[in-house]
C-alpha cells in the first residue's frame, strides 16, 4: 500500500507548503470548497472513517450531531495531546506533515460550518508548536485559512493551544476545560461537546490522524477509501511500534493488519532473536496480550473480540527479559501521576494499586496481595468518572489474568527472578 498519511515523510522539507503542494497538497480543500457541507459529511460517511484517537467513533456521525445543533459559532478542535504511553503516531504527522492536518481541518471546518479551530497540542512537543505555527502562517498567507478561503466565501481560523503536561487532557471534555483556561478535568456528559462544548458552543473534537485522513478521502473519494482495511474499519492506520523489535517506528498499514504481522513482518521480529513475552497492542491502557494471543486483526471491532483493544495503535513489545510486575508497577505510576483527582476511585485507587505493586516489586509483597490488587481494581472498574480510572484497573486485571504466576513468584521469592 502506498502511504497516504506518511507520504513524503522522508523529505526533510516536507513541512513546507511548497513541498506539500508539490505532492498534490490542498487539492482536497479546493475540491471540498466546491461541495456543500452536507456533501462532505456524506462522503466521509461513505468512507466509513472512524476516529483514530482511541475510541473509534464514526466521524460522520459526530459531525452530523454538531452540524444539526443550531448554535453558532461552532468549533473544531484537533486533539494533538497524544499522551497514551507508547503512542508516537501523531508526532510525525505534526512535525513532518502539518499542512495535511491543516488542510484536513479546513475541510472539516467547512463541513461543520465551524469558523474557528484550535489544535490542542501537548506541551511535550515544543518543536511541533513552531512547525505548526509556521505552517499555519503559510496557510494564512496563501489564503488557505482565514476569511474567504480561496475566494469561496468560507471562513476558518486556526490557532495552536499548547497543553502543559496532563495526559487527561486527551479526553475530549478535559481538553475543552483546558482550552478554556481551566484544569483539565472531564465534564459531565451529557451535554456532549457536539452540543455544548468549548465556550458553550457546539464542538467537534477529532484526533490528528483522523483529520489528516480528510485530504485523502477528498482525493480518492469515500467509496475507494472504504475499500482499504476491514469493512467495519476502513482506511489506513498508523501503527507505532516500540520495545523489543528489530525495527521500531511508525508504520502506515491497512486497518485490520494482524498484530503478529506487524511485529514479525513489518518490524523484523523480536530484537536479538529473543523470545516474545508480552505485547501491549494499543497503548498502555489497553489489555496486555500473551504471545499466543497475537493473531488478532488490529482494528476497533476485532480487537475487543480478542481480549484487547486497538486504542491508539501503539504496540509495545516485550521480550523475555522483562519483569512484568515492574512493567505493571510502572504503568500504575503513570496512572497515579495522571489521575486528575476528580473522582474518588481513581484518585485514591491508582495510588493504592501503585503502592501494592511497588511493595511486591521490591520484595515486600504479602500473601493475599494479588487478591487485594484485584479487589481494589474491581472497586474502581466501572465506577470512575472517566475511562482513565478504568484503564488503570484494567491494566492490573489483565497483567494478573495473563501472568499471575509471575506475580506469585515475585511475592514468594521476595525479589525478581526474571532473567533473560
Amino acid at each position, binding site marked *: 500500500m502506498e502511504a497516504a498519511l506518511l507520504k513524503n515523510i522522508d523529505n526533510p522539507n516536507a513541512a513546507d507548503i511548497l513541498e506539500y503542494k508539490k505532492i498534490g497538497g490542498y487539492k482536497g480543500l479546493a475540491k471540498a470548497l466546491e461541495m456543500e457541507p452536507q456533501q462532505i459529511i456524506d462522503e466521509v460517511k461513505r468512507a466509513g472513517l472512524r476516529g483514530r484517537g482511541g475510541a473509534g467513533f464514526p466521524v460522520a456521525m459526530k459531525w452530523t450531531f454538531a452540524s444539526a445543533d443550531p448554535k453558532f459559532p461552532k468549533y473544531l478542535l484537533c486533539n494533538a495531546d497524544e499522551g497514551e504511553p507508547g503512542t508516537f503516531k501523531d508526532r510525525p504527522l505534526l512535525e513532518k506533515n502539518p499542512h495535511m492536518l491543516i488542510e484536513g481541518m479546513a475541510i472539516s471546518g467547512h463541513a461543520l460550518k465551524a469558523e474557528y479551530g484550535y489544535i490542542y497540542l501537548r506541551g511535550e512537543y515544543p518543536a511541533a508548536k513552531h512547525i505548526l505555527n509556521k505552517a499555519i502562517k503559510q496557510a494564512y498567507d496563501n489564503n488557505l485559512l482565514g476569511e474567504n478561503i480561496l475566494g469561496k466565501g468560507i471562513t476558518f481560523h486556526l490557532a495552536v493551544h499548547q497543553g502543559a503536561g496532563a495526559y487527561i487532557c486527551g479526553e475530549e471534555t478535559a481538553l475543552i476545560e483546558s482550552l478554556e483556561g481551566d484544569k483539565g478535568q472531564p465534564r459531565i456528559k451529557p451535554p456532549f461537546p457536539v452540543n455544548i462544548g468549548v465556550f458553550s458552543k457546539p464542538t467537534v473534537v477529532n484526533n490528528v490522524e483522523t483529520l489528516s485522513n480528510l485530504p485523502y478521502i477528498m482525493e480518492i473519494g469515500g467509496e475507494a477509501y472504504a475499500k482499504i482495511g476491514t469493512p467495519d474499519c476502513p482506511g489506513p492506520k498508523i501503527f507505532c511500534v516500540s520495545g523489543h523489535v528489530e525495527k521500531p517506528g511508525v508504520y502506515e498499514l491497512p486497518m485490520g493488519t494482524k498484530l503478529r504481522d506487524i511485529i514479525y513482518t513489518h518490524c523484523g521480529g523480536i530484537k536479538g532473536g529473543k523470545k516474545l513475552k508480552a505485547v501491549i497492542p494499543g497503548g498502555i491502557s489497553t489489555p496486555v496480550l500473551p504471545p499466543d494471543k497475537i493473531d488478532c486483526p488490529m482494528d476497533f471491532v476485532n480487537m475487543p473480540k480478542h481480549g484487547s483493544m486497538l486504542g491508539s495503535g501503539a504496540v509495545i513489545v516485550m521480550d523475555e527479559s522483562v519483569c512484568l510486575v515492574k512493567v505493571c508497577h510502572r504503568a500504575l505510576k503513570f496512572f*497515579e501521576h495522571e*489521575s486528575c*483527582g*476528580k*473522582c*474518588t476511585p481513581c484518585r*485514591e485507587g*491508582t*495510588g493504592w494499586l501503585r503502592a501494592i505493586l511497588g511493595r511486591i516489586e521490591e520484595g515486600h509483597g504479602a500473601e493475599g496481595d494479588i487478591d487485594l490488587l484485584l479487589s481494589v481494581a474491581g*472497586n474502581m472498574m466501572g465506577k470512575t468518572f472517566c475511562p482513565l480510572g478504568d484503564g488503570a484497573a484494567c491494566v492490573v486485571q489483565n497483567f494478573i489474568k495473563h501472568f499471575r504466576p509471575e506475580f506469585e513468584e515475585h511475592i514468594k521469592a521476595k525479589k525478581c527472578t526474571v532473567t533473560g
Partner: protein
Amino acid sequence: MKIITITINGKEIKLEKAVTVLEAARSAGIKIPTLCYHEQLERYGGCRLCLVEVEKMPRLQTACTLMVTDGMVVRTETEQIADVRRGILEFLLINHPLDCPYCDKAGECDLQDLVERYGPAKGRFKEKKRKVKESLADSAIVRNMERCIMCTRCVRMCEGKQGASAIAVIDRGGHSHIEPFSGGKFDCEYCGNCVSVCPVGAIMSRLHRHSYRPWQVKEQHETVCPYCGVGCTVVAQVRDDVIMRVIPKLGSAVNNGMLCSRGRFGYEFVGSKDRLTVPLIRKNGMLTEATWEEAITLVAKKLSDIKVTFSSQAIAGISSLRCTNEDNYVFQKFMRAAVGTNNIDTTARTGFAGAQGFIENIFGQGATANIISGLANSDTVLVIGGDPTTVNPILGLQIRACARRNGNVLTIGNVEGLRNFNPSKLLPKLQTEVTLLEGIVTALREKKGLPGSNAALEAKIKDITISADEVTRKTGVAETEFLTFVDLLADAATFSLVIGKDIVQSSGGSYKLLLLSAINYLANGRIYLLSERANEQGALDMGCAPDILPGYRPVAYPEFRKKCENVWHTELSDKPGLNLFEMVDAAEQGRLKAVYVMGENPLCNIPDSGRVETAFKKLDFLVVQDIFLTETAKLANVVLPALSWAEKDGTFTNMERRIQRVRKAVHREGMDDWKIIAEISKNMGYNMDYKGAEDVFHEAAKVSPLLRGLTYEDIENGDNIYPYKGEPLRDAMEEIQADRSARSVKSGTLYLKIERPLFHSGTMSTKAPALINIYPEAVARIGAGTAQALSLTEGDVVRVKTKTGSLALFVAIEKNDDNLSVKISNNFEGKSAFRLTDCNLDPVTKAPCLDGIEITIEKVTA
C-alpha cells in the same frame, strides 16, 4: 407539558420537569447517599457515592448527575450497590485520619454517618497515610485538611456561589489538596460559606472549636442577622444559654443558605465580658453602679424637670437602627407622647432617610423596596456609590450571580468586590460624576425617548444636554467606553440600579440622585438603596424621624396626628422636631438641654464627630441606653444596660421592607429597650403597659398604615413585604428639588474617602473577637504611588489631618489605587473617619457631603 414517569426501587414517580435521578428520588422520600452533591452547588459527580443501577445502561450511573428520562427504571439499594458504596468509602478512608473522637464534626459528619450505615473499612490499606497539620492560621476558620475527602464543595461554593475564589484545588490526582492562595491564611472575605458546605471536619468554624458536640445543642432559634439592611435569616444554636454558633438556613427567602463574615462570625459580642450589666449614674464626675430603680427614677425626674424648666423642645431623642421595630416604636411614642416633642431622629439621617425620601418623592412610596434576589435575574445592573459586596454582602452576591449568568454588570467607579467579574466600568475624574450622569441621561433620552409617565421628573430632565464629546472632555472617560456603556443601558430589558452611600453623601448628592432616578426611569428599572444597619428601614417606618409619624405620616397633617392621638390618648405637637444635625447645633448653642440616646453612638457615627462631642458635653443631661460603654456612653449622666438582639423578641424590617421576626435565643438579666423606655415613661406619668413585644407590634399595626392589621403570625415565615393589607402607598407628593453645587477639587491634593469595611459596622462587630482578629483596627489606605512619594511602607504609623480633625493610623498600601485619595476605615470607635470630616449638608436630602475633603499625611516617627 409532558409528565415524565420513572420507577425507583419499584416506586413509580411522576415528574413535571426533567430533574436529576437524585432529585427525583428525594422528592419521593428515597435517600441516596451523597457527598460531593450539594443543593446549592453545581453538579459535580466526583465522589461516586450516589452510583445507582439504571436499566438498559451498562455502567452504573451517578444519580446526582443523571437526568431522568421517561420510562427510566432505577435501583438504588441492591446488594451490588451497597458493595460499591463500601468500596468507595474504603477509598475515602484510606487517607483519612479517623480522628473522630477529636473531631468537632463527629455527630454531624456525612462521612461518619455513611460509614456507620455501610460498614467499617476493612483496614486493608497498609501504606502510610497522607499527613497534613491542622491549620490555625485564621482566627475564624480552622482547617484539618487531612480529613478532606476532595468533594470540592468548598471550592465550588467559594468560586461559584460566593464568588470570592479564595481557595482552589492545588495539584492533581492523589496530591490534590485545597488551599487558599497563600497556602496558609485564607485572606478572604471570611464568609464561612465553605464551612457550611464541608461535609466532614476539614473546614470548620474556629469560634466553637472543641467547646461542645453537635448533639449537645438542644436549642435552635431562627432569627434575623443583626448586622446590615439585607436581613438574612440566621439560626442561632444554643447550649446552656450560650450561642455556640450561628448558621444560615437553606431555603430561607433572603439569603438561602449563604451568610457573610459579620453574620456568621460576628455573634460573639453577645457574650462579651465588656457588656454593660447594671445601670450607671454619674456621681462626682464618675460613672457609678446603681440600681434600676435609682436610674429610672433619676432619668424620669431629670427629664420632667427639664420639661418644666425649659420646655419639651429642650429634650431630644436619638433612637437606634439596630433596635427592633418595637423598641423604636415605643421610643418615638415616648418622645412624642411622654416628653411631648418631635425631636426624634436616627443616624438614618446621614444618608438613607434623605435618599429614600427623595426617590419616593419621584416614584412613590416603596420605590426602593425591591426583592434582593431580583438582582441576579436582571439583565443589567448598574452600581454606583460604593461596594455592595462589603456594605450589603449578600446583596452583593446577587450582583455577582447576575454577572455569572452573563448579565451586564456596569459600575461607575471602582467596585473592588466585583473585580473578578469583569464589570464594564467608567472611571470619571474626581468630582465629574455629575457631567457623566448628565451625559448618560442625555444619551438615554435621545435613544429611548421620554416614556411620558412621570411628568414631574421629565420636566426636570428634558433640557439636560451633555454630548458624548463633552463627557469625554470633562470626565476623562473615553468616548467609545462611554458609548458602549450607554448602549448596554439602553438595551437593558430588566434593569437594576444599586446606589451606595458615597453618592448620597456627596456634594450635589440630591442632583446626582435626580440624575440616577432619571436613568432608572429611562431604563425602566428598579432601585436598590444600600442600607448599612439591620433596622434602618424599620426605624424610619416606625416614625423615628422629626417630621413623620409611624407609617410615614407627616406630623403636620391633623388627620394623621389624630389617628395616633386616639390610640396614644394624648395630644401631639404639630411642629416638626429637630433632626439629628439640628440637635447637635442646638446642643452646641445651649438650646438643647437633654438628649436620650437609645442604641446609638453619635460620637462615632455622626460626621464631624469632634463637634458632636463638644456639643454633647454641653448638655445638662445625657442618657445612653446601650449594650456597651460606647464613646457616647462615657459622656452620659446615666447609662442604662440594654439587651442585645439575641436576647429579645421583636421584628426588623429589611431594605426590601420585609418584616421579619427577631427571636430570643439566649436569656440575660435586664430589660428590652422598649421596656426600659416604658418604665421611665410610667415614672413620668405617661403609662405604657405592654405585655410583650408582640403587644407593641399589635399597637403599631393599629396606628401605622404600613403594618395595618399585621400580626406576628402573619410574618412568621418572613415572606411579608409591605404594603401588606395596608392602604395604597402615597404617590409622589412635593415638587422635585435638587441641588447641584459640587465641591471643586484641585490637582496635587489628596482627598479623603470613607472605607466601609466588610468586617465592621460599629460597636457590635468591633466587640466580636473573630472579626477584630481579621481586621483589627482602622487604617489609612493609600495608593502605592502616594506611598512611594511619601516613602511610606505597609504598617507605618501616620498622622492624617483634615481641616476638621486628625487621627493617627496605620498605613495599608493598595496596589490598584488611584493615588488621588486616602481611604479611612469607618466604624472604629475613637478612630472614626467622621472625626476627619465636616458636616455640610445637602440642602435637599439633608445628607452630609463627605467628598472633596482635603487630607494630608505625615509619617509619625516612633
